[in-house]
């Protein structure tokens, strides 16, 4: 029975097994078709994706170009250092908090920094672009050696943290060159959008030469392709070589080009020492070429500090400093030129036949126009003066008279000829034009055109100039009327020292004056320093024909609304001290302009520094031409020379 019944059942089962076999074959065919689709039809696409999985492109940062002074002394170079980056995708949730805690301990982060890192993390994590979280962001710039060791030791606990070797800028130059050199800081998201060759966390030049010559200095980053596993860990060497074709492993970086400046580092240091004011500017420029030998804007900033890790408190201190350290006073601040402007008034007088070199004006201590009275510096008056004496004694009344007679527009025109009222063209970023009033621009409420002219004649009123404009104008007086474009870069060289570009002196125009006018002025300026009664007589030099003009520019009285302590108030109410000089007077080589902000008298607060620098310049020149000679002993030592040697120390 059992057998028969089973046999019945088997008859039932057998056809179903046949059907089952058919189903099995069909199902397996479906799999085969699917595999054909994945592996054969779309195979190429998946190969690309599988390579993209393990292949990671690292950038090899290019060495930034060096900056040297005219003698080849290193002003800015690169030093090896490490930046810390974090890739959000590789640590999330609890791991993120642990990693942050460890980083805070190992890198000694403040609550500020931790907050910033958390914000950055959150930003890339919440970004709509899912790839964003795979992009490392900067945690800490340029960490010290001992922290590098600590992080290396704890590498395995924090696989999302990367130490990236990045050369950092090292500024050897005196900090007084801060405004010239500029500094580096991280690129902003906007800049990243505009320039795809930059990567997040990289730095870009800010201000000065670093910014102006970014393209030359930067070079081109190289690329390194490496193989990583799913956790982002780099694989061993053999696997690397098997997975990445040799040609794609490394594309070396192209280092940036070097800048050779016209600046003489030694002179720059001397300028910084010689200039004693709290704030102000010094420009030393070659009179015939326009090349700048030294340029001080005080207070300055430390490029190293600005390029490295700087705390918010420090940044705030800088931005709150009433002396504005970030302001480049050489080219970005307006000052009344004071008496240094009298050379322009003189030339306007000569050119418009209002005066001759020998015609004289009587100074009784004041000048009257209508019911206004303008006083001279010397209350009892200078008596009768010709041009040379008026300039060397800096008589105001003489110039009130000249200005009154030439009129405001003649003064402005002459000033414009000498480069005032317009940027000088120094290729170092933003530069203000200064300001020259004329009869069209003045408002009736501010006084009559005559009153304006009288004020302008002694460099007051609405006239504003920059120290750099002064250097250009005095260079033109010194060199016979060439308006030069001031320049600070002499050469651009390739990393191996090949000359790529040489900058030639550039004469923008000739002032084109009557024959002899400039000689008269130069003669008078020589008298300023070298004849008894000259305002800068005390700053004369025994072996250098120094010519120059002092200036004491009155500043606007501060309103009482500004809450400043009395000492600060007093400081900001003091006059600006100017001295603009060139030497040697017979064949001028070099121009020195010193502006001592709120320094007081030009003769006391500006001229001595300029005099020291002149002495130093010529001494250095002598030393170079006769290197074997004993440098200091050979020079007899009257007062200015002592001052000069004290500068060296």
């Amino acid at each position, binding site marked *: 029975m059992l057998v028969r019944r089973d046999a019945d059942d*088997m008859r039932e089962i057998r056809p179903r097994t046949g059907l089952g076999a058919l189903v099995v074959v069909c199902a397996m065919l479906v799999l085969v078709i699917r595999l054909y689709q994945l*592996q054969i039809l779309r195979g190429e696409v998946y190969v690309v994706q599988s390579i993209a999985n393990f292949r990671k492109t690292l950038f090899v940062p290019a060495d930034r170009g060096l900056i040297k002074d005219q003698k080849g002394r290193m002003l800015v170079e690169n030093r090896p250092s490490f930046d810390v980056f974090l890739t959000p995708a590789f640590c999330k949730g609890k791991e993120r908090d642990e990693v942050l805690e460890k980083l805070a301990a190992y890198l000694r982060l403040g609550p500020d920094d931790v907050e910033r890192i958390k914000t950055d993390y959150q930003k890339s994590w919440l970004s709509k672009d899912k790839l964003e979280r795979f992009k490392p962001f900067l945690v800490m710039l340029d960490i010290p050696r001992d922290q590098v060791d600590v992080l290396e030791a704890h590498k395995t606990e924090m696989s999302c943290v990367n130490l990236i070797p990045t050369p950092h800028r090292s500024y050897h130059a005196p900090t007084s060159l801060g405004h010239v050199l500029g500094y580096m800081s991280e690129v902003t998201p906007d800049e990243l959008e505009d320039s795809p060759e930059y990567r997040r966390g990289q730095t870009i030049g800010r201000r000065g030469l670093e910014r102006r010559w970014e393209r030359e200095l930067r070079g081109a980053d190289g690329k390194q392709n490496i193989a990583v596993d799913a956790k982002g860990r780099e694989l061993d060497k053999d696997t690397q070589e098997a997975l990445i074709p040799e040609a794609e492993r490394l594309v070396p970086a192209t280092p940036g080009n070097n800048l050779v400046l016209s600046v003489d580092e030694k002179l720059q240091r001397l300028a910084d020492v010689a200039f004693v004011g709290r704030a102000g500017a010094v420009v030393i420029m070659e009179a015939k070429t326009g090349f700048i030998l030294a340029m001080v804007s005080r207070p300055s900033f430390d490029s190293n500090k600005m390029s490295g890790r700087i705390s918010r408190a420090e940044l705030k201190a800088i931005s709150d400093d009433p002396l504005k350290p970030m302001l480049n006073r050489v080219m970005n601040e307006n000052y009344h030129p004071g008496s240094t402007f009298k050379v322009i008034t003189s030339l306007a007088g000569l050119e418009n036949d209002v005066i001759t070199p020998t015609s004289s004006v009587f100074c009784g201590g004041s000048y009257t126009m209508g019911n206004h009275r303008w006083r001279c510096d010397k209350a009892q008056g200078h008596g009768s003066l010709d041009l040379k004496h008026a300039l060397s004694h800096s008589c105001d009344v003489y110039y009130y008279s000249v200005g009154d007679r030439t009129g405001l527009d003649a003064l402005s025109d002459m000033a414009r000829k000498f480069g005032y009222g317009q940027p000088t063209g120094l290729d170092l970023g933003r530069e203000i034009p200064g300001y020259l009033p004329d009869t069209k621009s003045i408002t009736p409420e501010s006084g009559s055109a005559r009153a304006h002219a009288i004020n302008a004649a002694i460099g007051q009123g609405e006239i504003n100039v920059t120290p750099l404009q002064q250097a250009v104008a005095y260079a033109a007086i010194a060199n016979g009327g060439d308006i030069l474009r001031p320049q600070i870069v002499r050469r651009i060289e390739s990393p191996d020292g090949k000359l790529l570009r040489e900058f030639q002196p550039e004469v923008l125009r000739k002032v084109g004056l009557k024959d002899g006018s400039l000689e008269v002025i130069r003669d008078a300026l020589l008298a300023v320093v070298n004849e008894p009664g000259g305002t800068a007589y005390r700053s004369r030099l025994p072996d250098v024909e120094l010519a120059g003009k002092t200036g004491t520019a009155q500043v606007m009285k501060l309103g009482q609304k500004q809450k400043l302590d009395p000492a600060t108030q007093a400081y900001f109410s003091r006059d600006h001290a100017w001295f603009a000089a060139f030497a040697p007077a017979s064949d001028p080589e070099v121009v020195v302009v010193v502006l001592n902000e709120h320094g007081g008298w030009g003769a006391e607060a500006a001229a001595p520094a300029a005099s020291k620098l002149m002495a130093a310049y010529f001494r250095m020149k002598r030393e170079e031409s006769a290197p074997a000679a004993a440098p200091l002993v050979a020079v007899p030592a009257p007062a200015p020379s002592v001052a000069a040697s004290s500068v060296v120390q």
Partner: protein
Amino acid sequence: MALGVTEKRLDNLHWPLVLCTVIICSLGLWNLASATKNAPMFMALAQTRWMIFIGLPAVIVLLFIDYRWLQTVAWPGYFAALGLLAGVAFFGKRVLGARRWLQVGSMQIQPSEFVKLAVIVILARWFTRDETGVRKGYYGLFDLVQPFVLILIPCALVMKQPDLGTALVTFAIAMTMVMFAKVKWRDLFIMLATGAGASVFAWSRFLKEYQKQRLLTFLNPEAYAKGAGYHAIQSMVAVGSGQWSGKGWGEGTQNQLAFLPEQHTDFIFSVWAEEHGFLGAVVLIGLYAFLVLAALDVAANARDKFGSFLSIGVAALFFWHAFINMGMVTGILPVVGVPLPLFSYGGSSVVADMLGIGILLNVSMRRFMF
């Protein structure tokens, strides 16, 4: 049992099936060695030990026992299996949010793998012993309440671990066996339609999106651990990048660099397809197809109904595991954790699969005996 008889029966051994199994096992170990090349412990060696020292002796012992004896142990076996599942629920080892393993000495066993066999045996026994089908000539829907209860209890316990994949496969195996009983096509269709309809209805009508997501995550935690879709995508990249002939043994970047998740267990086929390409994958699919077809052949030629149902159950076991696993790693089925028989790493699964082969050999060896 006399030795002579055994020798005679060895002639009746299904040698093609044995050969096919040996080939699959060998390829499996070779592939596992590649998949676990960078693992701290040489898993392929452990797998070999399980096959040789547990699986093989168990199969040999099984061959000496007439498979009909299984009818007598069906109930104790079934309850033992349920007991183990209950043990897992209380004492199980929790891994990635699921309790699936029982710690026995230094070994961990996964009872749900053996539950499949217990279900196959108990259903085969039920369909052999039950008189209803014979009396009526067919099974009506209500006649099947009892086997359904037998199926659903273990399935529910496995689901609770939770292990959606194993529960589904166990259910699929049981349903396949039901289809081979005298159930009218119309009733089969009704069962399938109600089951499918009810689940679709429940899914779309009563569950909110986040609940669905939560349920999926709950039932299948690994698949969602790194974000839904990651496993499936990386697996397809691995398979697809194998192209015609693959990247070579041990050269699969998806596998070796750990972009492929679970490459030694659920995604072992991706390793094979990545390293041996379309050609290798088709060969392996062919081997599994051969295994299942051979099992159906054993079922068709079995001496009795019990042997036939046992073989159908084992055929279903291999078919569903292979199909769901390969379908899952190639992206035509959702990611549910189901091992590829004799390929995926895991002692319980390998031993259970080998026991299944042992049952097939047993049934085919005794097909001429009365």
